[in-house]
């Protein structure tokens, strides 16, 4: 290992980095702001996705058992539905229990004693393993003989699934937009440093330095811009998580934000990858344009 080479290379990177301190501060600041926005967006998206997931998890398929079905047939139906690999659980609710539950829920609102007998059928309550499988599982149950009607709040499930889909697509679009904005700013910063060092670059080219060797310090400079900016952003987001998030949870009691879990480590890693990648790509393009001319 030639440490002299390493020292020279790092010296060149550091010299670049400190030479245009004002521009570097601007680039790092912009990356930091962009990453804070991106981090906030990822946070909100994770929260919404978490809440949506919770709502979807609560969706139950309610299948009534035909009135003429025997107890043995009902048990067989329950086993048949439970055998479906997409089904998480099947709960049998006899009509007596269902009627008692309904009477309890409607107490004080409707006088159920006016209703003659028990109008409810036996019901099988089915949970799917994954929310998006609910429609297919429900359709499958509906085809079984001995099953009356099947309900699962079809339109709500479809809407929630659509919402999740829209969030994912918007998320990709927003991230791409942030990526472009940060990239353009870093590219312009690097372009200025390239311009400031054009004499040095022309001499490097003259003595036979390869384009890769000329490019490398600028790539490192862009990477440094991206990573330092991301570090600042992560600190800001971390402070916000500790100070603002508990207040938000307390203020929005009607939304169960507390139960939403975040993969913080992964999110931070993603932000660093985005920040670093923006720096590398932007500086590669900025220097490339100069080397071609």
């Amino acid at each position, binding site marked *: 290992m*030639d440490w*002299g*080479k390493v020292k*020279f290379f790092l010296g060149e990177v550091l010299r670049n980095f400190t030479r245009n301190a004002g521009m570097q501060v601007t680039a790092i600041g912009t990356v930091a702001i962009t990453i804070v926005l991106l981090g906030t967006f990822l946070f909100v998206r994770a929260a919404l996705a978490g809440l949506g997931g919770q709502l979807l998890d609560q969706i139950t398929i309610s299948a009534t058992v035909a009135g003429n079905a025997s107890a043995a047939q009902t048990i067989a139906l329950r086993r048949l539905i439970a055998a479906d690999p997409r089904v998480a659980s099947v709960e049998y609710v006899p009509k007596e229990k269902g009627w008692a539950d309904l009477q309890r829920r409607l107490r004080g609102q409707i006088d159920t004693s006016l209703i003659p007998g028990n109008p409810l059928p036996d019901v099988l309550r089915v949970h799917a393993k994954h929310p998006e499988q609910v429609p297919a599982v429900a359709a499958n149950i509906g085809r079984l003989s001995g099953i009356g009607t099947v309900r699962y709040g079809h339109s709500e499930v479809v809407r929630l699934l659509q919402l999740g889909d829209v969030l994912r697509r918007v998320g990709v679009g927003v991230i791409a937009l942030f990526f472009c904005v940060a990239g353009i700013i870093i590219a312009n910063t690097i372009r200025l440093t390239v311009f400031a060092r054009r*004499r*040095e670059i022309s*001499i490097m080219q003259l*003595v*036979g330095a390869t384009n890769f060797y*000329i490019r490398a310090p600028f790539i490192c400079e862009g990477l440094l811009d991206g990573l330092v900016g991301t570090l600042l952003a992560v600190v800001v987001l971390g402070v916000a998580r500790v100070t603002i998030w508990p207040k938000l949870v307390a203020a929005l009691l009607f939304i169960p934000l507390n139960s939403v879990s975040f993969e913080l480590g992964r999110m931070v890693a993603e932000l660093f990858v985005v920040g670093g990648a923006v720096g590398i790509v932007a500086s590669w393009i900025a220097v490339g344009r100069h080397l071609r001319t």
Partner: protein
Amino acid sequence: MLSLRNVSLVYPNGVHALDHVNLEIAKGEFVFLVGDSGTGKSSLLRLLYREARPTSGEITVDGIRVDRLRRNRVPALRRHLGVVFQDFKLLVDKTVWENVAFAMQVTGAHTRDVMRQVPRVLDLVGLAHKSRMYPGELSGGEQQRSAIARALVNNPKILLCDEPTGNLDPDNGNEIMELLSRINLKGTTVVVATHNQSVVDRMRRRVVRLQEGRVATDEERGYYYLGLGQGQVLSG
């Protein structure tokens, strides 16, 4: 060592810089390129170190077909060459030592080789005692000697000099030419584009005269002006 066959160069703006130039330079030769401004001296040098590509013709430098050379192979060509300019092209924020070492460091030379070679060339150009000074602290002649040291540090077989004495007074100009002559004696092929009549007339080396982009004359031991020695002037 250097060969141009039927080489023409037309710039994108339509200017015909070189017109069917034929020139052979052997290994170890010292050649002056002379001619008025705009006759194609610098353009010819630019073609040799592949700063420009010929519009037509064949160029060979140390066995490399420069006219066909792909862009990613240009660095390899330039490691065979040293180039010196009128304006020195030194980095003002690096010392003499750093400027010279820079040429080796950016081509990936081992630090051990840098430490051995840089003092050697600084000694050759007579700047060992000023190695820690910055270009701004040196005279024009010393700056040009630094630039020559940088051009020589990678042991090139060919040294191309574009008006190396253009920014220097006569004494410093003579010193630089003596230095180039010494370098040539060590076996390096030296090509100098110049307007400096006195050094050309005094050194009496091969003189290739360009006129309107063509080789007008090529003399084995020539003068700046055709058939004239130092102190003589053209009449009329």
